[in-house]
Protein backbone atom coordinates (compact mmCIF):
# COMPACT_ATOMS: atom_id res chain seq x y z
CA UNK A 1 0.00 0.00 0.00
CA UNK A 2 2.74 2.43 1.01
CA UNK A 3 4.80 1.53 -2.06
CA UNK A 4 1.76 2.01 -4.23
CA UNK A 5 1.17 5.52 -2.85
CA UNK A 6 4.83 6.37 -3.32
CA UNK A 7 4.75 5.28 -6.94
CA UNK A 8 1.64 7.27 -7.78
CA UNK A 9 2.78 10.33 -5.91
CA UNK A 10 6.18 10.42 -7.57
CA UNK A 11 6.45 13.79 -9.35
CA UNK A 12 7.64 12.21 -12.59
CA UNK A 13 4.77 9.73 -12.73
CA UNK A 14 2.28 12.51 -11.90
CA UNK A 15 3.75 14.76 -14.58
CA UNK A 16 3.31 12.13 -17.31
CA UNK A 17 -0.09 10.88 -16.13
CA UNK A 18 -1.71 14.32 -15.69
CA UNK A 19 -0.83 15.32 -19.27
CA UNK A 20 -3.15 12.56 -20.47
CA UNK A 21 -5.99 13.47 -18.06
CA UNK A 22 -6.17 17.25 -18.51
CA UNK A 23 -7.77 17.36 -22.01
CA UNK A 24 -10.56 14.99 -20.93
CA UNK A 25 -11.48 17.08 -17.90
CA UNK A 26 -11.18 20.36 -19.81
CA UNK A 27 -13.38 19.23 -22.71
CA UNK A 28 -15.97 17.68 -20.39
CA UNK A 29 -16.08 20.89 -18.29
CA UNK A 30 -16.51 23.02 -21.42
CA UNK A 31 -19.30 20.89 -22.94
CA UNK A 32 -21.17 20.58 -19.63
CA UNK A 33 -21.03 24.30 -18.90
CA UNK A 34 -22.25 25.19 -22.42
CA UNK A 35 -25.19 22.80 -21.99
CA UNK A 36 -25.79 23.87 -18.37
CA UNK A 37 -25.75 27.58 -19.24
CA UNK A 38 -28.05 27.02 -22.22
CA UNK A 39 -30.57 25.21 -20.00
CA UNK A 40 -30.17 27.73 -17.19
CA UNK A 41 -30.34 30.93 -19.23
CA UNK A 42 -32.79 29.97 -21.98
CA UNK A 43 -34.82 26.91 -20.99
CA UNK A 44 -35.37 27.20 -17.22
CA UNK A 45 -38.49 29.19 -16.26
CA UNK A 46 -38.24 32.62 -14.52
CA UNK A 47 -38.64 32.77 -10.74
CA UNK A 48 -41.98 33.77 -9.15
CA UNK A 49 -40.29 36.43 -7.00
CA UNK A 50 -37.06 37.44 -8.69
CA UNK A 51 -38.07 37.10 -12.34
CA UNK A 52 -35.09 36.73 -14.66
CA UNK A 53 -32.51 38.06 -12.19
CA UNK A 54 -32.32 34.77 -10.30
CA UNK A 55 -30.42 33.23 -13.26
CA UNK A 56 -27.18 34.48 -11.74
CA UNK A 57 -27.40 31.42 -9.44
CA UNK A 58 -26.00 29.35 -12.32
CA UNK A 59 -22.65 31.08 -11.75
CA UNK A 60 -22.96 32.28 -8.16
CA UNK A 61 -23.97 29.03 -6.47
CA UNK A 62 -21.47 26.68 -8.20
CA UNK A 63 -18.68 29.21 -7.50
CA UNK A 64 -19.66 29.44 -3.84
CA UNK A 65 -19.82 25.64 -3.51
CA UNK A 66 -16.41 25.35 -5.18
CA UNK A 67 -14.93 27.99 -2.87
CA UNK A 68 -15.66 25.64 0.06
CA UNK A 69 -14.80 22.43 -1.79
CA UNK A 70 -11.42 23.68 -3.04
CA UNK A 71 -10.58 24.90 0.45
CA UNK A 72 -11.24 21.44 1.89
CA UNK A 73 -9.09 19.83 -0.84
CA UNK A 74 -6.35 22.35 -0.08
CA UNK A 75 -6.49 21.82 3.70
CA UNK A 76 -6.62 18.02 3.47
CA UNK A 77 -3.71 17.98 0.98
CA UNK A 78 -1.74 20.32 3.24
CA UNK A 79 -2.50 18.01 6.19
CA UNK A 80 -1.31 14.95 4.23
CA UNK A 81 1.80 16.90 3.28
CA UNK A 82 2.42 17.85 6.91
CA UNK A 83 1.84 14.43 8.45
CA UNK A 84 3.00 11.93 5.81
CA UNK A 85 5.35 14.34 4.00
CA UNK A 86 4.14 13.37 0.55
CA UNK A 87 5.55 16.12 -1.67
CA UNK A 88 2.79 15.85 -4.26
CA UNK A 89 0.17 16.66 -1.58
CA UNK A 90 1.90 19.98 -0.85
CA UNK A 91 1.99 20.63 -4.60
CA UNK A 92 -1.78 20.03 -4.90
CA UNK A 93 -2.44 22.36 -1.95
CA UNK A 94 -0.25 25.13 -3.39
CA UNK A 95 -1.80 24.71 -6.85
CA UNK A 96 -5.36 24.83 -5.44
CA UNK A 97 -5.08 28.11 -3.53
CA UNK A 98 -5.32 30.62 -6.43
CA UNK A 99 -8.12 28.58 -8.04
CA UNK A 100 -10.09 28.53 -4.79
CA UNK A 101 -9.48 32.24 -4.32
CA UNK A 102 -10.83 32.87 -7.83
CA UNK A 103 -14.01 30.88 -7.15
CA UNK A 104 -14.48 32.79 -3.88
CA UNK A 105 -13.98 36.09 -5.68
CA UNK A 106 -16.51 35.16 -8.39
CA UNK A 107 -19.04 34.11 -5.73
CA UNK A 108 -18.61 37.43 -3.89
CA UNK A 109 -18.80 39.59 -7.05
CA UNK A 110 -21.81 37.83 -8.59
CA UNK A 111 -23.57 37.90 -5.22
CA UNK A 112 -22.91 41.61 -4.92
CA UNK A 113 -24.27 42.30 -8.43
CA UNK A 114 -27.35 40.27 -7.52
CA UNK A 115 -27.71 41.95 -4.13
CA UNK A 116 -28.16 45.45 -5.51
CA UNK A 117 -31.41 44.86 -7.45
CA UNK A 118 -32.81 42.17 -5.11
CA UNK A 119 -31.89 43.30 -1.61
CA UNK A 120 -31.22 46.95 -2.36
CA UNK A 121 -27.52 46.83 -1.36
CA UNK A 122 -24.29 45.60 -2.96
CA UNK A 123 -22.87 44.53 0.38
CA UNK A 124 -24.10 43.94 3.91
CA UNK A 125 -22.07 42.70 6.87
CA UNK A 126 -24.19 39.68 7.65
CA UNK A 127 -22.66 36.41 8.87
CA UNK A 128 -22.71 34.64 5.48
CA UNK A 129 -21.08 37.44 3.48
CA UNK A 130 -18.53 38.20 6.18
CA UNK A 131 -17.45 34.56 6.64
CA UNK A 132 -17.11 34.14 2.86
CA UNK A 133 -14.93 37.26 2.73
CA UNK A 134 -12.76 35.75 5.50
CA UNK A 135 -12.41 32.66 3.30
CA UNK A 136 -10.99 34.86 0.54
CA UNK A 137 -8.48 36.32 3.02
CA UNK A 138 -7.52 32.80 4.17
CA UNK A 139 -6.70 31.91 0.56
CA UNK A 140 -4.69 35.14 0.23
CA UNK A 141 -2.88 34.39 3.49
CA UNK A 142 -1.95 30.92 2.26
CA UNK A 143 -0.66 32.33 -1.04
CA UNK A 144 1.27 35.10 0.72
CA UNK A 145 2.99 32.58 3.04
CA UNK A 146 3.87 30.34 0.09
CA UNK A 147 5.34 33.28 -1.81
CA UNK A 148 7.22 34.94 1.02
CA UNK A 149 9.13 32.00 2.56
CA UNK A 150 12.25 31.14 0.58
CA UNK A 151 12.71 27.56 1.83
CA UNK A 152 10.01 25.43 0.15
CA UNK A 153 9.69 22.96 3.04
CA UNK A 154 9.21 25.75 5.56
CA UNK A 155 6.75 27.49 3.23
CA UNK A 156 4.69 24.29 2.96
CA UNK A 157 4.73 23.83 6.72
CA UNK A 158 3.67 27.38 7.58
CA UNK A 159 1.04 27.75 4.87
CA UNK A 160 -0.23 24.21 5.50
CA UNK A 161 -0.81 24.98 9.15
CA UNK A 162 -2.72 28.15 8.20
CA UNK A 163 -4.86 26.13 5.76
CA UNK A 164 -5.69 23.62 8.52
CA UNK A 165 -6.51 26.33 11.06
CA UNK A 166 -8.82 27.96 8.51
CA UNK A 167 -10.93 24.81 8.24
CA UNK A 168 -13.00 26.05 11.22
CA UNK A 169 -14.39 28.73 8.91
CA UNK A 170 -15.95 26.16 6.54
CA UNK A 171 -18.82 24.97 8.80
CA UNK A 172 -19.31 28.58 9.90
CA UNK A 173 -19.89 29.63 6.27
CA UNK A 174 -22.25 26.73 5.63
CA UNK A 175 -24.33 27.10 8.81
CA UNK A 176 -24.15 30.91 9.11
CA UNK A 177 -27.60 31.23 7.54
CA UNK A 178 -29.05 28.87 10.17
CA UNK A 179 -27.19 30.02 13.27
CA UNK A 180 -27.77 33.74 12.84
CA UNK A 181 -30.35 36.00 11.25
CA UNK A 182 -28.82 36.87 7.91
CA UNK A 183 -29.98 38.87 4.91
CA UNK A 184 -28.62 36.05 2.75
CA UNK A 185 -31.20 33.34 2.11
CA UNK A 186 -31.06 29.93 3.78
CA UNK A 187 -29.94 26.73 2.02
CA UNK A 188 -32.00 25.76 -1.05
CA UNK A 189 -30.20 22.58 -2.12
CA UNK A 190 -27.50 21.62 0.41
CA UNK A 191 -29.78 20.52 3.24
CA UNK A 192 -31.28 17.25 4.43
CA UNK A 193 -34.77 18.20 3.24
CA UNK A 194 -35.93 18.06 -0.34
CA UNK A 195 -34.44 20.98 -2.37
CA UNK A 196 -36.70 24.09 -2.38
CA UNK A 197 -36.22 24.67 -6.07
CA UNK A 198 -38.24 23.60 -9.08
CA UNK A 199 -36.73 20.61 -10.89
CA UNK A 200 -36.36 22.55 -14.19
CA UNK A 201 -34.24 25.12 -12.36
CA UNK A 202 -32.36 22.53 -10.30
CA UNK A 203 -31.04 20.39 -13.17
CA UNK A 204 -29.06 23.19 -14.89
CA UNK A 205 -27.71 24.20 -11.46
CA UNK A 206 -26.41 20.68 -10.77
CA UNK A 207 -24.95 20.48 -14.30
CA UNK A 208 -23.10 23.74 -13.71
CA UNK A 209 -21.87 22.50 -10.33
CA UNK A 210 -20.45 19.38 -12.00
CA UNK A 211 -18.92 21.49 -14.81
CA UNK A 212 -17.17 23.70 -12.23
CA UNK A 213 -15.81 20.61 -10.44
CA UNK A 214 -14.38 19.24 -13.69
CA UNK A 215 -12.97 22.67 -14.51
CA UNK A 216 -11.25 22.71 -11.13
CA UNK A 217 -9.70 19.28 -11.75
CA UNK A 218 -8.36 20.41 -15.13
CA UNK A 219 -7.02 23.69 -13.70
CA UNK A 220 -5.43 22.14 -10.62
CA UNK A 221 -3.67 19.53 -12.76
CA UNK A 222 -2.27 22.21 -15.08
CA UNK A 223 -1.07 24.30 -12.14
CA UNK A 224 0.29 21.29 -10.23
CA UNK A 225 2.35 20.20 -13.28
CA UNK A 226 3.99 23.62 -13.42
CA UNK A 227 4.55 23.57 -9.68
CA UNK A 228 6.16 20.09 -9.87
CA UNK A 229 8.48 21.22 -12.67
CA UNK A 230 9.46 24.33 -10.73
CA UNK A 231 10.08 22.52 -7.44
CA UNK A 232 12.08 19.74 -9.10
CA UNK A 233 13.96 22.08 -11.44
CA UNK A 234 17.33 20.81 -10.17
CA UNK A 235 16.41 17.11 -10.25
CA UNK A 236 17.53 14.71 -12.88
CA UNK A 237 14.14 13.86 -14.38
CA UNK A 238 13.37 17.53 -15.12
CA UNK A 239 16.85 18.05 -16.62
CA UNK A 240 16.36 15.00 -18.82
CA UNK A 241 12.95 16.26 -19.82
CA UNK A 242 14.39 19.63 -20.84
CA UNK A 243 17.25 18.01 -22.75
CA UNK A 244 14.86 15.75 -24.63
CA UNK A 245 12.95 18.78 -25.99
Amino acid at each position, binding site marked *: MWNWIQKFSSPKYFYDMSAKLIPWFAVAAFLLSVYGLYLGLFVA*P*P*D*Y*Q*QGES*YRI*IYIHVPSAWMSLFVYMVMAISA*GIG*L*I*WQIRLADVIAAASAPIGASFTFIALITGSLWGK*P*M*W*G*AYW*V*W*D*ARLTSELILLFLYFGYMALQASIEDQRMADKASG*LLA*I*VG*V*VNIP*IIHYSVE*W*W*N*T*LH*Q*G*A*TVTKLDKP*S*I*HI*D*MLIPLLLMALAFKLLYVALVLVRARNEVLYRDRNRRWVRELIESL
Partner: protein
Amino acid sequence: MSELGYQKKGMSKRGKRKMVVALVLLGVAIATVLALTAFEENLLYFYSPTQIHDGEAPANRSFRVGGMVVDGSVQREQNSLAIRFDLSDNANVVPVTYSGILPDLFREGQGIVAIGKLDNQGLFIADEVLAKHDENYMPPEVHEALKAGEAANKAAQTLTN
Protein backbone atom coordinates in the same frame (compact mmCIF):
# COMPACT_ATOMS: atom_id res chain seq x y z
CA MET B 1 15.93 -5.37 12.01
CA SER B 2 17.30 -2.00 11.11
CA GLU B 3 14.34 -1.40 8.83
CA LEU B 4 11.93 -2.18 11.65
CA GLY B 5 13.76 0.27 13.87
CA TYR B 6 13.57 2.93 11.16
CA GLN B 7 9.89 2.33 10.63
CA LYS B 8 9.15 2.53 14.32
CA LYS B 9 10.97 5.82 14.62
CA GLY B 10 9.25 7.13 11.48
CA MET B 11 5.86 6.11 12.78
CA SER B 12 6.26 7.87 16.09
CA LYS B 13 7.41 11.04 14.32
CA ARG B 14 4.45 10.83 12.00
CA GLY B 15 2.21 10.13 14.97
CA LYS B 16 3.56 13.21 16.71
CA ARG B 17 2.82 15.37 13.66
CA LYS B 18 -0.69 13.91 13.55
CA MET B 19 -1.14 14.88 17.18
CA VAL B 20 0.11 18.42 16.56
CA VAL B 21 -2.26 18.92 13.61
CA ALA B 22 -5.19 17.47 15.58
CA LEU B 23 -4.44 19.60 18.64
CA VAL B 24 -4.08 22.79 16.59
CA LEU B 25 -7.41 22.12 14.88
CA LEU B 26 -9.11 21.31 18.20
CA GLY B 27 -7.67 24.40 19.91
CA VAL B 28 -8.71 26.74 17.14
CA ALA B 29 -12.18 25.17 16.99
CA ILE B 30 -12.70 25.66 20.75
CA ALA B 31 -11.40 29.23 20.58
CA THR B 32 -13.74 29.98 17.67
CA VAL B 33 -16.78 28.52 19.45
CA LEU B 34 -16.00 30.63 22.54
CA ALA B 35 -15.47 33.77 20.49
CA LEU B 36 -18.66 33.26 18.48
CA THR B 37 -20.69 32.63 21.65
CA ALA B 38 -19.26 35.76 23.25
CA PHE B 39 -20.09 37.89 20.24
CA GLU B 40 -23.39 36.17 19.52
CA GLU B 41 -25.39 39.38 19.68
CA ASN B 42 -23.12 41.30 17.31
CA LEU B 43 -23.40 38.54 14.74
CA LEU B 44 -27.16 38.93 14.47
CA TYR B 45 -27.80 40.82 11.31
CA PHE B 46 -31.22 41.89 12.55
CA TYR B 47 -33.61 41.69 15.53
CA SER B 48 -37.05 40.15 15.23
CA PRO B 49 -40.24 41.99 16.29
CA THR B 50 -40.48 39.59 19.28
CA GLN B 51 -36.97 40.53 20.43
CA ILE B 52 -37.97 44.22 20.20
CA HIS B 53 -41.17 43.44 22.08
CA ASP B 54 -39.13 41.78 24.85
CA GLY B 55 -36.86 44.83 25.06
CA GLU B 56 -33.77 43.07 23.70
CA ALA B 57 -33.16 45.65 20.98
CA PRO B 58 -30.83 48.57 21.77
CA ALA B 59 -32.46 51.89 22.68
CA ASN B 60 -31.14 55.24 21.37
CA ARG B 61 -29.02 53.47 18.80
CA SER B 62 -29.57 52.48 15.20
CA PHE B 63 -30.21 48.76 14.63
CA ARG B 64 -31.91 46.44 12.16
CA VAL B 65 -35.29 44.78 12.40
CA GLY B 66 -36.35 41.89 10.18
CA GLY B 67 -39.75 40.38 9.51
CA MET B 68 -42.62 39.96 7.07
CA VAL B 69 -44.55 42.96 5.73
CA VAL B 70 -48.08 42.32 7.03
CA ASP B 71 -50.68 41.86 4.28
CA GLY B 72 -52.86 44.94 3.85
CA SER B 73 -50.76 47.10 6.19
CA VAL B 74 -48.90 49.17 3.58
CA GLN B 75 -50.09 52.81 3.49
CA ARG B 76 -48.47 55.19 1.00
CA GLU B 77 -48.75 58.94 1.28
CA GLN B 78 -49.76 60.73 -1.88
CA ASN B 79 -47.20 63.02 -3.57
CA SER B 80 -44.33 61.73 -1.43
CA LEU B 81 -42.19 58.62 -0.98
CA ALA B 82 -43.32 58.20 2.62
CA ILE B 83 -44.66 54.78 3.46
CA ARG B 84 -45.93 53.08 6.61
CA PHE B 85 -46.29 49.35 7.18
CA ASP B 86 -46.34 46.69 9.89
CA LEU B 87 -43.55 44.16 10.28
CA SER B 88 -44.39 40.79 11.83
CA ASP B 89 -42.64 37.55 12.81
CA ASN B 90 -46.01 35.82 13.28
CA ALA B 91 -45.84 36.50 17.03
CA ASN B 92 -45.40 40.25 17.42
CA VAL B 93 -45.77 43.32 15.20
CA VAL B 94 -43.64 46.46 14.86
CA PRO B 95 -44.97 49.47 12.90
CA VAL B 96 -42.39 51.00 10.54
CA THR B 97 -42.21 54.31 8.67
CA TYR B 98 -39.83 54.97 5.81
CA SER B 99 -39.28 57.59 3.16
CA GLY B 100 -37.21 56.66 0.14
CA ILE B 101 -36.80 54.23 -2.72
CA LEU B 102 -37.74 50.63 -1.97
CA PRO B 103 -36.04 47.56 -3.49
CA ASP B 104 -37.86 45.73 -6.30
CA LEU B 105 -38.79 42.82 -4.07
CA PHE B 106 -40.60 44.97 -1.49
CA ARG B 107 -44.25 43.93 -1.31
CA GLU B 108 -46.83 42.74 1.19
CA GLY B 109 -45.98 39.29 2.54
CA GLN B 110 -42.28 39.77 1.71
CA GLY B 111 -39.48 39.35 4.24
CA ILE B 112 -37.54 42.61 4.68
CA VAL B 113 -34.86 44.13 6.89
CA ALA B 114 -35.18 47.78 7.96
CA ILE B 115 -32.34 49.85 9.46
CA GLY B 116 -33.22 52.67 11.80
CA LYS B 117 -34.26 53.65 15.35
CA LEU B 118 -37.18 52.98 17.62
CA ASP B 119 -39.00 56.09 18.84
CA ASN B 120 -40.74 56.50 22.24
CA GLN B 121 -44.08 55.26 20.95
CA GLY B 122 -42.57 52.01 19.66
CA LEU B 123 -42.63 53.19 16.05
CA PHE B 124 -39.60 52.14 14.03
CA ILE B 125 -38.23 54.98 11.89
CA ALA B 126 -36.24 53.38 9.06
CA ASP B 127 -33.38 55.01 7.14
CA GLU B 128 -32.95 52.07 4.81
CA VAL B 129 -35.09 49.11 3.73
CA LEU B 130 -33.58 45.91 2.32
CA ALA B 131 -35.61 43.05 0.88
CA LYS B 132 -34.83 39.47 1.89
CA HIS B 133 -35.69 36.72 -0.55
CA ASP B 134 -36.20 33.19 0.69
CA GLU B 135 -34.71 29.88 -0.39
CA ASN B 136 -37.66 28.92 -2.60
CA TYR B 137 -37.25 29.02 -6.37
CA MET B 138 -40.17 28.17 -8.64
CA PRO B 139 -41.86 29.33 -11.84
CA PRO B 140 -44.74 31.85 -11.41
CA GLU B 141 -47.31 29.27 -12.61
CA VAL B 142 -46.30 26.86 -9.86
CA HIS B 143 -46.58 29.65 -7.28
CA GLU B 144 -50.07 30.49 -8.57
CA ALA B 145 -51.07 26.83 -8.45
CA LEU B 146 -49.76 26.52 -4.88
CA LYS B 147 -51.70 29.60 -3.79
CA ALA B 148 -54.86 28.33 -5.50
CA GLY B 149 -54.39 24.96 -3.78
CA GLU B 150 -54.00 26.64 -0.40
CA ALA B 151 -57.12 28.72 -0.94
CA ALA B 152 -59.07 25.61 -1.98
CA ASN B 153 -57.89 23.79 1.14
CA LYS B 154 -59.01 26.67 3.33
CA ALA B 155 -62.39 26.81 1.64
CA ALA B 156 -62.81 23.06 2.10
CA GLN B 157 -61.91 23.37 5.78
CA THR B 158 -64.40 26.15 6.42
CA LEU B 159 -67.07 24.10 4.64
CA THR B 160 -66.45 21.00 6.76
CA ASN B 161 -66.43 23.13 9.90
